[in-house]
């Protein structure tokens, strides 16, 4: 299974951090290099942990998701 953390890092790099900057799940899959199906499963896990919000065909990081990435750094 795709590492959900990779998805968080990619959303972070793409500045997908609010509904205005949300990105299409399809584009996210393309950038990561996986199929939309694979990414859907991982996004469900991440949504369950409140790290991402799915808004129609788009997705973005929650504040909790941003903090999770930040926790890598200190």
């Amino acid at each position: 299974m795709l590492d959900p953390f990779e998805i968080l890092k990619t959303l972070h790099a793409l500045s997908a951090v609010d509904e205005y900057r949300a990105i299409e799940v399809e584009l996210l899959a393309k950038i990561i290099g996986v199929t939309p199906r694979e990414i859907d499963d991982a996004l469900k896990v991440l949504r369950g942990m409140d790290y991402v919000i799915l808004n129609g065909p788009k997705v973005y990081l929650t504040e909790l998701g941003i903090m999770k990435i930040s926790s890598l750094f200190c």
Partner: protein
Amino acid sequence: MVVLHVTNELEPLKRIGQLAKWVRENVDGGKVLLLGFEGRRNLDGIEVVGGGLSPRVAVSDVVEEAFMELFTTLAELPYKLDPRNVSLVEGHEWRGGLAAYIIAKRLRVPFRFSIYTREEERGGQGLVSEAIKSIESFLMSSADEVFERLKNSRFRRESSSGFQQYSNGGFSILHASWEYPPHMVGGLGRAVTSMTKRLTSYADVFVATIGLPGRVHDERAERLKVMRVDPFSLRSTGLVSWVYAFNALIVAKVLTEGVKPSIIHAHDWLTAPAAVALKHLLRAPLVVTIHATEYGRSRGNISTSMQQQIHYWEWRLTYEAWRVFVCSNSMRGEVEAAFKLPRDKVIVLPNGIDLEEFDAFKPEHGERDNYALPWEKIVFFTGRHVYDKGVDLLIECARILLQRRSDVKFVISGDGPMRMHLEWLARSYGLGDKVLFTGRLPDNVLYKVMKLADVIVIPSRYEPFGIVALEAMAAAKPVVATQIGGLAELVKEGETGVLVPPESPEALAVSIERLLDNPELAKDMGLKGRKRVEELYGWGKIVRYLFHIYGRVLEEYASSGWKTLFDSSISPPQLKH
């Protein structure tokens, strides 16, 4: 009128692609700042100044490379370029544009962005391409004039620089920190928040930091101004280039706001590029607090490009700083070894705790029931769920202890990359109902849970200071901690807690059990810990000492004779006691 052209290619000096030729054709007179080039040339009357060569550090992609080049240039430029008569700064393509954008802010002149071929037209894909597109878009929306050179299309914006005047009179300190409320990740944010709040008794304090989505507005309180930038204004290629983008935005923000600090105080590598650039652009002395090092986290194994860049910026920061603060004697040894620093440059300044604020949070009736059953004793952990914090060791310890008794509940607060693995580990041991993962708790809740706990455990593998130990002692709770780093200095073995060897879940279990079985001993240790915190770790005393050091740095600065080509309008600040 002299135009300063900024580019990373110029025929015939530095040629990568078509840009070198295009720029050469479009530069007629003026000065050229050539990024990634060393030296000075005269090309048919055009003065060419090299921005300097980036350090030999591995980078992962062209965006990281461009930012390294940018920060190298910003730190060297005040000694190379005479800015007199420059009335416009023109950046060619995104790399030149980024540098020109910031230089124009420093020189307080308009910025023109010249673009030849947009990334979108090149048809690039992937994170690098997305990052370049966003930088181009940012520069187009920030420039006073956009010039699409190949299309000969110009767009001028009504000039609204919004520059504030530099304030030269009072004593002011600029803290650069990537953590500040609401972006609080670890102990660094807590330390900077308390430190800056206390410093307002002595000086005007500016904090340059991150704004989270929807919360990027500046804040002003008496003698404290929090200046936030949106680090997501630019897309990045990964964590390192994201940090670089954030730093570039900080430099631009400080220059736009006209802040001329008496001293710049940076915290960790995450604000190093901005702090070093601002030191030279504003000719202000720099001090730094190193809260943790990559060298320490990786046990001296600096190998990946990310580690190399972090290590480089940590070294550069400590090299450039007039004083290096560390939070413990253990960290003093670590930074002296990692960066070959002279001993008298390093000062141990522990983190403190704001007891008034800490004591204000009291558990409410029945609140304990949210975490454990009445007959269960609470063993509490809080921290980031990363390898260094040893949470996996705590779960192993829980497995051992719960084989012997069932009256214990392990409450684990925090979040991090290992969280899913840790939850799986606890479930796989059959500890689902005995290990509670709360996720991140806000401080007001966290402090209450600490006061409800019976024992607080810190099983870290690497811990420069250990702010949680301080908080545990403030809560009058006994601590079981590993005998490493700052923990071995904070926790008095047998008096305020128990120190155990690292990597030993069995030792953790034995020590926790001893305290659970001896409530009088646990209570006595807790009270002694509280007394120790009151005597040694109040922020008031710590900040008084910090301010004294600032004074010494300013005295040295005043007699240093340090000059740059940029600073004729800036007079040395005076210290007001």
